């Protein structure tokens, strides 16, 4: 493993300050977006509805990127299945949103969601119990990804599966979950997943107020996640993680149980991803098994690689910039955007092993 990982960039204090400043400025601009949205459309600083809406989505992606960075950039665990944790978190909240529709569904059934009614189900499956309560759903959005990561991690780390093998196993996990969630018999709405949500915590979802509230919820969660990750990576645990990444067996001989170290960070990372998914679903209004597709997970890993892994700012930068490019190109060059995005991935891995953040570091060394 040792040769494959980048070093944690250690920035000179001034650079660190600039990065921190950038991070704060970015978060501040985000915080102001819904307010700028209130300005009249012809005002110079007006932010359109669309930008507010995609920024909300990107923040959720940024949480996923943060989660991946924590596991990969710091602990060297490259999971190609983090999209699964994200999707599971989304499904948990999605189930809550479906329960809240209640009798407002097309068929007016008091309990069953529409898709169950027209597939001829008569009873709510047991695993849907409790999801009418928001705290329970939120708990599940964190616990289910956490438990799955715990189980998978425990099995894998215990038998010392690392590197490429771990990546392939996590990829198989998300693939298997995708196939499972595509099945209508699972009771999760099959290919269509969940849509047509009505309200959350008493707010009508299709209103500007609800969108602003969700936006700030995402912003707060993202900021919280950044703070948490920052605290973690700066603690001794963070240094142990880096040590595990660079020379796992050496850490073991120092008396650390690398299984529990890796497991705890993997579980935490999965829960962060789950939280991102939980915020994502009410913002975009749909969750379906496509989120489990292995390609999605790989793409999320690439955001981190593009931004610069092993730094928190890098993960955020990657998530925002790649998604912004994608949003732009899928409209600007609908036939050619895959070339541009694919080319970007190739170029970054070849020329910028430390991502965009690495550029800054290079500048510093000169």
């Amino acid at each position: 493993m040792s040769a494959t990982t980048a070093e944690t960039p250690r920035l000179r204090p001034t650079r660190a300050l600039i990065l921190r400043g950038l991070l704060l400025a970015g978060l501040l601009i985000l915080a102001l977006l819904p307010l700028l949205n209130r300005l009249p459309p012809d005002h110079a600083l007006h932010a359109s509805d669309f930008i507010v809406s995609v920024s909300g989505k990107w923040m959720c992606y940024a949480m996923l990127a943060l989660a991946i960075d924590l596991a990969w950039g710091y602990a060297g665990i490259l999971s190609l299945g983090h999209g699964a944790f994200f999707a599971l978190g989304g499904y948990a909240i999605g189930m809550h949103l479906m329960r809240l529709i209640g009798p407002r569904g097309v068929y007016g059934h008091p309990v069953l969601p529409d898709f169950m009614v027209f597939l001829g189900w008569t009873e709510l499956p047991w695993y849907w119990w409790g999801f009418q309560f928001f705290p329970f759903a939120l708990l599940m959005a964190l616990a289910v990804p956490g438990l799955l990561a715990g189980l998978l991690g425990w099995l894998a780390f215990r038998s010392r599966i690392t590197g490429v093998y771990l990546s392939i196993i996590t990829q198989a996990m998300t693939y298997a979950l995708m196939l499972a969630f595509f099945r209508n018999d699972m009771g999760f709405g099959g290919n269509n997943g969940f849509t047509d949500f009505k309200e959350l915590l008493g707010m009508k979802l299709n209103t500007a107020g609800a969108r602003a509230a969700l936006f700030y919820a995402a912003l707060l969660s993202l900021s919280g996640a950044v703070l948490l990750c920052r605290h973690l990576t700066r603690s001794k645990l963070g240094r142990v993680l880096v040590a595990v990444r660079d020379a796992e067996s050496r850490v073991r001989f120092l008396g650390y149980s690398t299984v529990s170290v890796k497991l705890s960070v993997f579980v935490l990372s999965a829960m962060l991803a789950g939280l991102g998914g939980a915020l994502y679903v009410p913002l975009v209004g749909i969750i379906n098994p496509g989120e489990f597709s292995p390609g999605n997970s790989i793409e999320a890993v690439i955001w981190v690689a593009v931004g610069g892994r092993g730094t928190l700012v890098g993960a955020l930068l990657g998530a925002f910039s790649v998604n912004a490019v994608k949003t732009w190109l899928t409209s600007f060059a609908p036939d050619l955007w895959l070339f541009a995005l694919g080319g970007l991935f190739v170029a970054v891995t070849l020329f910028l092993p430390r991502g965009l953040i690495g550029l800054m570091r290079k500048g510093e060394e000169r």
Partner: protein
Amino acid sequence: MKAGTLYLDGVSVVFDGFRALNSLSLVIEPGELRAIIGPNGAGKTTMMDIITGKTRPTAGTVQFGDHDLTRMDEAAIAELGIGRKFQKPTVFDALTVFENLELALKAPRDPWSCLRWVLPPAARRRIEATLAEIGLADRAGARAAILSHGQRQWLEIGMLLMQEPQLLLVDEPVAGMTDQETEHTAALLRRIAGQRSVVVVEHDLEFVRALGEKVTVLCEGAVLSEGSIDRVQNDPRVIEVYLGR
């Protein structure tokens, strides 16, 4: 069994039909400094792997005090007080010298404690003392990646010291060192012994002589000869193994 005694009895290891250790028996008393030599493939590194839990023996007993090491994993054995320095120095390149030592410092090792860890002043002083001892006091803030080969060896020995082990296993500590560095290392190891047992695996007979302690010769996975360096060097079987074929 006396606490701190390492006790190997009849240990065999077979890899795909190849016998790396062949009924090896060895006792290291607390506080003893022992050099182990032997030709390539004699089983020196495998022996270390067995003691530190990296490899499981096919047969035999491995005990440290009252603990059965064959039932414990690397981390648990390390926590028990057995430290190991690898042949190729492995320090954490991405961390500073100080942080390397801090990681090795004897302290609760579970993730939660690591997360809440604040370096106590006493521990800081210990780290600083060790830095001085291994001659890296002025490099404390430097990343380990930029250290010279010798400095890395010392840093690793320093990390072992921070672990406060009862038994230290040192694999070829002076390979690739200059004479001056070798001397410095020998002195360092002699200083360490006395408080704890040290097992040194080494090719360099001059270095072993400089250590001036009991020597065990391994060959084909078993003990060939044991005693002072002079005695061992005059043992005909040893001469045959080293010079014969």
